């Protein structure tokens, strides 16, 4: 399994909101997130953004 860069990881974090990632992608992403605080925050921010947009129409 190749190591993900933050750039690649951030794209997968975004795509995970739109489609089911492959098993290999999920494994690579999990490994990256376990070591990278910046991308972990990015993922949390995207979840906040999604909640905000849900609230936007309520």
């Amino acid at each position: 399994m190749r190591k993900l860069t933050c750039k690649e990881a951030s794209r997968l974090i975004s795509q995970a909101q739109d489609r089911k990632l492959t098993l290999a992608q999920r494994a690579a992403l999990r490994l990256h997130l376990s070591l990278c605080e910046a991308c972990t925050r990015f993922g949390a921010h995207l979840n906040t953004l999604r909640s905000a947009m849900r609230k936007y129409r309520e």
Partner: protein
Amino acid sequence: MSDFAAAVNAQRAYLLRIARLQLPERERAEDVVQETILAALESQDSYAGKSSVKSWLTGILKHKIIDAIRRSAREPAVPAMGGEGDIDDLDVFFSEHDHDHWESKPADWRNPERDLEQKQFMDMIDFCLERLPPNTARVFMLHEVMGLESDEICKELQITATHLWVILYRARMLLRKCLEQNWFARAETAG
């Protein structure tokens, strides 16, 4: 005016904001909002009260916008989807030397649940949405607010799924940055 009509009319500005992100010509956006409000008033009986009036109106607006997109697809005046499908412009978010790391590390947003409760935060979302490239805003709103499925968006706008993911990624990257700079950074200095 009945309470229901008043509640519907109270959402006019919100509907127009969304419609203008989808349809850049002001008149066309206004037409769609008129159609939505008329349709809503005519179908009051179908409003079950399960969701908010705002959310229900968003659903009606979605259909009116899809109709408008279909109509305009038959006219040559539609802005092409090209240009915003390229991902290279997002490289600025990552270190110049290698793309391994973030150029500036995403901040700790602490308790964002609290921020979501504030009206000013929602105003900031509007501010940031208006600063997105037009097609990026359009796709993001269709997907996240109007709840159009990915395959429907691809079909209506004639783009590939890969292109769609790139556009949504761009929207999230830019919105996240905008909120961080204009809201969360400010909250931090305010203590």
